[in-house]
């Protein structure tokens, strides 16, 4: 029986935390958001995620669930009577999981590398790789959506959540590097998808404003530069 004792340990600007928020909203689950200071980790966080000491952590009753992709699948499976997040067909699920892993293991790390990239040449190379990834996602979208609005088809699904969580940061990085990452002439389907995703009622208002993410990005870059000079 579903309980409503749901808490989310997180930080509003974390794309991984945002994923969980999207999933909870899609299932219309009420939850308490407990903001975490990652530079001074709380007892609750350390107790709930002793292995990685990281966010997001979903607390369902007294049960902690960690890892954003694990949490989203948990939400989908526990609240199975809500709209489905993962596709029902095992092969379609495999495709969604494959691209989710690609986004997390290959694509998002390019941005992490950008924070410590020292010269223009390496930055340019990373931007190229990011753009190549977006071209791949354009093809994936066309195949997965089958002419409908989202990667998940008519409704927002797993891949929408996994990629969509990064749209705010993508814009912030775009300002930082003066690059238009989502270019209508190069990835038109993704541009349309991004607008529809961001304005959906389950998604809207979760990702912080681009100005706020840009401000945080400056702090991240300053800290990275500081660490590099030591």
């Amino acid at each position, binding site marked *: 029986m579903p309980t409503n004792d749901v808490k989310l340990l997180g930080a509003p600007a974390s794309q*991984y935390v945002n994923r969980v928020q999207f999933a909870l909203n899609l299932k219309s689950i009420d939850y308490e958001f407990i903001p975490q200071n990652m530079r001074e980790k709380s007892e609750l966080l350390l107790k709930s995620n002793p*292995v*990685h000491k990281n966010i997001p952590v979903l607390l*369902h009753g007294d*049960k902690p*669930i*960690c*890892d*954003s*992709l*694990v*949490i989203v*699948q*948990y939400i989908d*499976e*526990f609240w199975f009577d809500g709209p489905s997040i993962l596709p029902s067909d*095992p*092969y379609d*699920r*495999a495709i969604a*999981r*494959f691209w989710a*892993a*690609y986004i*997390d*293991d*290959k694509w*998002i*790390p390019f941005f992490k590398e950008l924070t410590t990239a020292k010269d223009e040449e390496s930055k340019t190379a990373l931007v190229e790789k990011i753009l190549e990834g977006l071209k*791949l996602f354009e093809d994936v979208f066309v195949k997965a959506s089958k002419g409908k609005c989202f990667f998940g088809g008519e409704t927002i699904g797993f891949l929408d959540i996994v990629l969509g969580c990064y749209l705010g940061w993508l814009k912030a990085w775009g300002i930082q590097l003066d690059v238009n990452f989502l270019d209508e002439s190069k990835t038109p389907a993704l541009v349309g998808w991004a607008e529809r995703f961001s304005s959906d009622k389950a998604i809207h208002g979760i990702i912080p404003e681009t100005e706020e993410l840009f401000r945080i990005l400056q702090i991240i870059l300053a800290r990275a530069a500081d660490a590099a000079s030591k």
Partner: protein
Amino acid sequence: MEEVKLFGYWVSPFCRSVEIALNIKGIQYEYIEEDLTNKSPQLLQYNPVYKKIPVLLHNGKPIVESMVILEYIDETWKNNPILPEDPFEKARARFWANFVDQKCFPALWKTIWSTSEQYEQNKAEALERLKVLENELGGKRFFGGDSIGMVDIVANFIGFSFRTIQEALKLDVFTEDNFPKLWEWAENFANCSPVKKCLPPQDKLIANFPPAYMGKTLVSSFQSRLQLQFHPPAAAK
């Protein structure tokens, strides 16, 4: 009629994971050994993004990445489940499978390819990861409980090959004294019939890992082939 093919490489623990899962489910499959220095056109066609094994082909449809394949197998063939049914227990299993895949395997792998200068530091990291795993196993026979599940399967490298390789290379990372529960788990794991059916022969494994870091050089072409396949995955999110 089901047609199941697996493109693999004999030494790959990622391949082993898929084979163990297929064996648990009693699925008949055709195994195709890939030459990683000369990848087949089919491999490149079925896995254009990574160009890696394992690739499972089910009725002509390719599924790639071992963890994705394991979930696919469990969802397609419902007998002998490798994941628990309860959503929370399933989430726990996925969490620990990720931990083994993204934290334990790379740490152990690094110890094998260490130079003598790097060894102590790499060993320390590996010991830390194994300790976390030992605590998680606790008093259970397997991570999956009474029978092997996804976490056990993903940990197959620790269960068999790593002990064989470390003995050949005279490393002292995973010992019975340091990790008595994991050691017993490894013995039980390697003796399960779905696992025994597909383990690489011990002597072939030893022959391919000649004594390494004590000043001697590894067979460089073999090393570079394996490193192409097994570069440590990116950090967990």
